[in-house]
């Protein structure tokens, strides 16, 4: 009589299981890589912008970058889309929204900041991109064939329309009298 062989606790994996696990691990690693590439640090706004009501440091950084691409400094009109006054107006615009609309609208800057992941795998978030790549990236929004991207692009421009182009000095420079001369 011989002793029974010790139980074999070796797990034998099928080829299919190996492939599935390998793919899953690759996916997790790729997602982690892409995610880490999207992590950015955002500077605190300067002392000139400490009175913001709702925008976070991250949102300020995103709107600054987008604003300076959409309406860059040095144009024929005062200021720019990314300067303190436009950011302040953007903050007021968000603060004035009903709560449910504000929550929804907070997704807009994030879509542009992190849309780089879908647009080109492994890219840094938008605010961390070099200027040339960022221009290339935003052109992909402006010329988008996907309707939702076009709609978000137009929504973004609407937000700057409601902020930068409402500045009295900008309107005055375009020849529009500030109506009735009242403070805004």
């Amino acid at each position, binding site marked *: 009589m011989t002793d029974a062989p010790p139980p074999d606790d070796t797990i034998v994996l099928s080829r299919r299981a190996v492939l599935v696990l390998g793919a899953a691990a690759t996916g997790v690693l790729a997602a982690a890589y892409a995610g880490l590439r999207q992590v950015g640090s955002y500077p605190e706004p300067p002392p000139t912008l400490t009175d913001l009501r709702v925008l976070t440091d991250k949102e300020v950084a995103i709107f600054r970058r987008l604003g300076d691409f*959409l309406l860059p400094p040095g144009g024929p009109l005062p200021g720019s889309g990314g300067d303190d006054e436009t950011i302040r107006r953007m903050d007021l615009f968000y603060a004035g*929204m009903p709560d449910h609309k504000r929550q929804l609208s907070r997704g807009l800057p994030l879509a542009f900041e992190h849309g780089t992941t879908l647009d080109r795998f492994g890219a840094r978030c938008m605010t961390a991109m070099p200027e040339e790549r960022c221009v290339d990236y935003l052109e992909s929004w402006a010329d988008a064939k996907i309707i939702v991207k076009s*709609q978000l692009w137009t929504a973004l421009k*609407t937000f700057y*329309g409601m902020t930068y182009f409402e500045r009295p000095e900008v309107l005055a420079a*375009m020849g529009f009298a500030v109506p009735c001369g009242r403070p805004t």
Partner: protein
Amino acid sequence: MTGRLGVLEAGWWGERSGSFTESCDVVIVGSGAGGAFVALTLAEAGLDVLLLEEGFHHGADTFSPDTSTSIEQLFQEGGLRTALGRPPMPVAGGKALGGSTVINSAISFRTPEDVLAEWNEVSGGAFEDAEHYYRTMDAVEAIVSVGVTPDRLLSGYDRVHKEAANALGWSNHNFRRNTPRCAGCGRCNNGCPVHGKASVDVAVLPRAARAGCRVITGASVLNVAPNRVEGVVVGRDRAELGTFTVDAKQAVVLSAGAVASPRLLLNSELAPGGGEVGAGLLVHPVFTLYSFFEELVVAAPGSSQGHYVDEFAADRMLFESNPTIPGAIFPGTPWWGKDAWNYIGKGSNWASTGVMVRDESPGRISASSGAGAKIEYDIGAADRDRAILGMTRAAEMWLQGAEATLVTLNVYGAPACSTVDEVRAVLKDVPFGRLIGYSSHPQASCSVGRACRPDGEVIGADGVYVIDASSLPLNVGRNPQISVMTVARVLAERLATKLGGSVQPLWQGGELYSVPQAGVACGLTLPADAP
């Protein structure tokens, strides 16, 4: 200077600072074009009327010239109310004492006779007495002081709009508007800063208050039941200050507009009318073309909207001159960066046309427990074709009639075009979802004959009435305020009689509209030949 109807009488409305309970014969929810005429009719008929308004009273000196601030303060959902569908579309609506009449361009069309006949047919005879309808409309127009915009009040962009239409020989007109003391500052949509517009908060509600109607602002109704409404008291800072209950012995009338009225009924589970409440919504979409000129076109201030083209009215389209607002032009153009500066930087060189389509593909308002309305609307194939035809024709007007340098289309991702052939190429087979539409005139969502009886009573919800833009049986195809006021009066007369009231004449003669210092403000004064 004082007059019978339009004198500002501080204190005829009230804001509450905490919870309250009230009772009355009839409670009216909403103070816009519909609610104001219901309140006036029922109060003068001898009924005890209480009117609740979610927004607040704003005087000429408190309206902000800043568009974004005005939108936040005076528009439903901060101006971000949107219909979901193909394409998604903002749906504007006023939130103030006076409703949308406070923030509209004061455009005052009469209901066309063929439209009234159509309404009568689809409503099962609710508008059979056309003579009475138009007599009522005459009185409505007198009360809100409708008149033709004189040429001297056309803005620069109105003038080029008119010249372009004339060059092509197209039928066109100056708008009729209810702005008897217009100073031509172009700020109608921010709230008139000079009391120049006879919105209902100026021309109608004070008379209703004199007849005994109580008016409470900052009262947001959340729930409706036969003989009762409940809601929350809100402050101007949007803080909730308490709750309220109003018991109405005889009737609850919803006049909160074509989105909010059916939404209230549906949220309150008071819409058993075979699914007709909220159905049938028409939004009267507008598709805008912006046109760029080498020379200045906005040199002259004027009315916010002064001119329109009705050459294609039989094809269910109107072209309306739109105000030049750089912040609105920017998203409607393909440019950004340095290209934006080249064109948008010259903001005064732009004019625009809104192609308004009398739509026939209905959407729907649904119950929505959250803070926002749930509006579903897909533009139908026939309406899309009208939009495309209209934009093509409007491009002809600008490029051939006015020799504009280029036009931009309300189509996502479309390039600017400098020839009509380019416009046709862009618009050929354009997907529904790529059109960029806008709605300021939602209507017909709780219509007489389908969801309501001829006096506005909701079928299946006895004692609850809807009388506002929702009541229109079909799209009127024009800026609707005068039609809404007239329909409201006609339905309210029926309701007053049913409730035992004695209907008084709408037109009572006398001085119509007079507000101290109207039409004079901030260096803008009435032209010398003003009435």
